[in-house]
């Protein structure tokens, strides 16, 4: 039986803040420690099982294998397929090695989907707590302008998707790619030992809800019908609760089942942030934004949009990352800088889960903000970091700092 698959094709910006085309994915995937280029990688996704393969040019074989084997790097595909160079068959001399490692695995591609490095990273990550967070974050990014619109925000800011792909991917492509990444990820995660999965997902925003049967059925159906749908045409509605839906009748029910799990956190959070900031008497001079590993470019876009809609501009934004969240936080900081959003100055800093280090970070900020009349602290990092930052900011700056979860 020939396996049927969807193919995600990575489309990247020519020059990113670090390097060049294809490298942003490597930066995210290697936990921010590498910036090599892999030429035109693609991901093959089995529509029946969610199994994922990385298709790569044979000259990049060893680098891809290094990434796959490396304990730190996120790449966790089920197999690597190599594309041959030039004419003829793929290196018959090494057929034993290639058969053993799945390099010659065949999959009938029934649809090709363009994908940004964010959804590509999500699709090729492991299916642990972080990997599922990356998948949710990718889908949030794909519909971020729709979330903003539902929050009555119409910023002048360039969309993050346009920023990372330079406009070579349409929102519709990215929606489809992000749906594939999430659906295949959930199906793959369910093959893990149930008790381990529960323990792994404990503190996650997902809890065990994604493992419920209706969600699993929805993911399975989405993978199977996406090839016959040109674009999912997703939309976001506030209808009692947050609703992600599709204008395509074949997808509508399945996508709606994913709604709360996918958009609940981001929607409720920024609705609350917007409400609290509207109630402020004074214009805050700085924002301190803690970046958790579940956050992405959508969060940077929504914070900036809210600030722009309320005050037009703001003096400074601190993007505070931890060792786990820093690749995405770094990207968000560059996005805010490069797109000349509402913040006149964007500062990127790395703190950590050590409460002592978080206290030092708070101390540094306090020194810089001693003259400020009002600051906003958006607290989303790890508990030990947030508790230490919050306590020290409150002790040092008193009521001048507004702290929001």
């Amino acid at each position, binding site marked *: 039986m020939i396996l049927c698959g969807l193919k995600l094709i990575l489309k990247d910006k020519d020059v990113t803040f*670090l*390097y060049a085309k294809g490298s942003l994915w490597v*930066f995210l995937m*290697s*936990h*921010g*420690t*590498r*910036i*090599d280029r892999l030429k035109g990688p693609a991901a093959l996704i089995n529509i029946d099982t969610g199994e994922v393969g990385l298709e790569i040019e044979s000259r990049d074989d060893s680098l891809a294998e*290094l990434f796959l*084997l*490396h*304990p*730190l*790097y996120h790449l966790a595909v089920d197999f690597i397929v190599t594309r041959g160079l030039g004419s003829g068959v793929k290196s018959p001399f090494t057929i034993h090695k290639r058969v053993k490692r799945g390099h010659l695995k065949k999959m009938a591609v029934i649809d090709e989907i363009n994908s940004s490095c964010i959804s590509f990273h999500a699709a090729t990550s492991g299916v642990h707590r*972080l990997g599922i967070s990356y998948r949710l974050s990718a889908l949030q990014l794909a519909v971020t302008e729709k979330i903003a619109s539902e929050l009555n925000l119409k910023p002048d800011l360039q969309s993050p998707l346009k920023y990372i792909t330079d406009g070579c991917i349409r929102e519709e492509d990215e929606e489809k790619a992000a749906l594939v990444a999430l659906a295949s990820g959930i199906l793959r995660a369910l093959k893990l030992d149930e*008790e381990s999965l*529960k*323990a*792994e997902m*404990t*503190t996650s925003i997902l*809890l065990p809800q994604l493992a419920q049967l209706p969600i699993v059925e929805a993911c399975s159906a989405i993978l199977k019908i996406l090839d016959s749908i040109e674009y999912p045409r997703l939309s976001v509605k506030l209808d009692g609760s947050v609703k992600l839906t599709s204008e395509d009748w074949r997808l509508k029910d399945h996508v709606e089942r994913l709604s709360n799990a996918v958009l609940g956190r981001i929607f409720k959070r920024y609705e609350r942030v917007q409400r609290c900031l509207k109630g402020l008497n004074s214009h805050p001079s700085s924002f301190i934004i803690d970046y958790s590993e579940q956050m992405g470019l959508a969060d940077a876009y929504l914070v900036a949009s809210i600030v722009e809609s309320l005050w037009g501009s703001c003096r400074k934004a601190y993007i505070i*990352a*931890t*060792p*786990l969240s820093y690749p995405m936080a*770094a990207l968000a900081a560059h996005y805010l800088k490069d797109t000349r959003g509402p913040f006149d100055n964007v500062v*990127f*800093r*790395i*703190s*950590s*889960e*050590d*409460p*002592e*280090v978080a*206290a*030092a970070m708070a*101390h*540094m900020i306090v*020194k810089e903000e001693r003259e400020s009349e009002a600051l906003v602290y958006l*607290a*989303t990092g*790890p*508990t*030990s970091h*947030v*508790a*230490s930052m*919050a*306590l*020290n900011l*409150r*002790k040092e700056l008193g009521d001048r700092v507004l*702290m*929001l*979860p």
Partner: protein
Amino acid sequence: MSEQFGEFKIVKPEDVKFVEPSFIVYYPDMVYANPKILETDLLLVLKGACIFVEIEDSLSPKSIVTKWAGKQLDSGLLAQPILYFVPSQEEAKDPPIADSPCSPPILLPKPMLKALVKNELKPLIEEIIKELQDWRAKCFSLDNFMCILLAYSSPVVCKWLVGEAELGRYAEEGFGLLAKRIEMLNVAKGLGPGKVRISGSIEDLITKEEFKPARVIVLIPLLRSHVLHQKIAEAIADYVINLAKEDIDLFLICTAESKGDAEAVRKLLREKGLKKIEVYSSPRGRLAEESMEVAGKGPSIIVLTGEIPKDVVLKLAEFTASRLNEVKLAVTAWKPDLRIFPDRIRELDIQLREPNLTLRVVALDFMRFEANTQR
């Protein structure tokens, strides 16, 4: 060989700029546990290179090859040089290659290392051990991150991070170990001398702590894992016992979903001799209020374990900030204990290997940063 590959540089002892015994790197996800991804006996940092050194006491060279191959693969160090020091000159001369899946490691006789450590490397080792003992527990997660950069990162990323994320500013706040890490990065990645200024100071308040709570309130989220139950129970028991107050009341506050976890922790705490323990189950929306109510009855410490919803964390931070003399906030964090070094390789007179990480309760009112108000 030299014609084909160009000129080789012979590494001399004076080329070694930093030496660290027991160089260990953990996966940086600090929520649950921290699996080791790299563990080496001795790290040598030279200009433009890191050399990972393994010291073997009793293995035959043949089994070293097997162990070496697995370890190199496991730690993602396939592209890195690794030196092996083995007991005798004869073994070093005769590395086995016939049935090895990998190219042979570089084997050097152990007396050579002994002489090297005793003569040239000793001051460097003593210097880093002092920094590790003074600071690693306080900045463990960030230090681990910089060790990741040292072992795995490309020079461009290191340069960009040290510059853009201003990691050097921690040195200005007094974290000497982080200054040393930046210097190591600068040397190993060929980024220039870049000496980091250490200024400012941190006064440790823990030893001055005279706060005596009547109760300890512990928030227990969903944990599920038996190992975490044990680690949290150990951390709380150690903390409560260290407070040296026998009549302390312990309250475990949980939600309906995490009640099983709280009960499991209570059982373990009882086994450790703590008797006065109550479990309160509270609705998710009242977790903070419930804790504050209990804490409002007298001197208390509120301990946050695992990942607690941030609205709850902020409410409790507000609450404790408004009652600094009556209520303290604390968290659990993974920490290495570098006061206890097992002397694995006693004859080399190097203190080696931190024990596995332990979860510890850390009170947040612990430090006072001084001076250095101007940059």
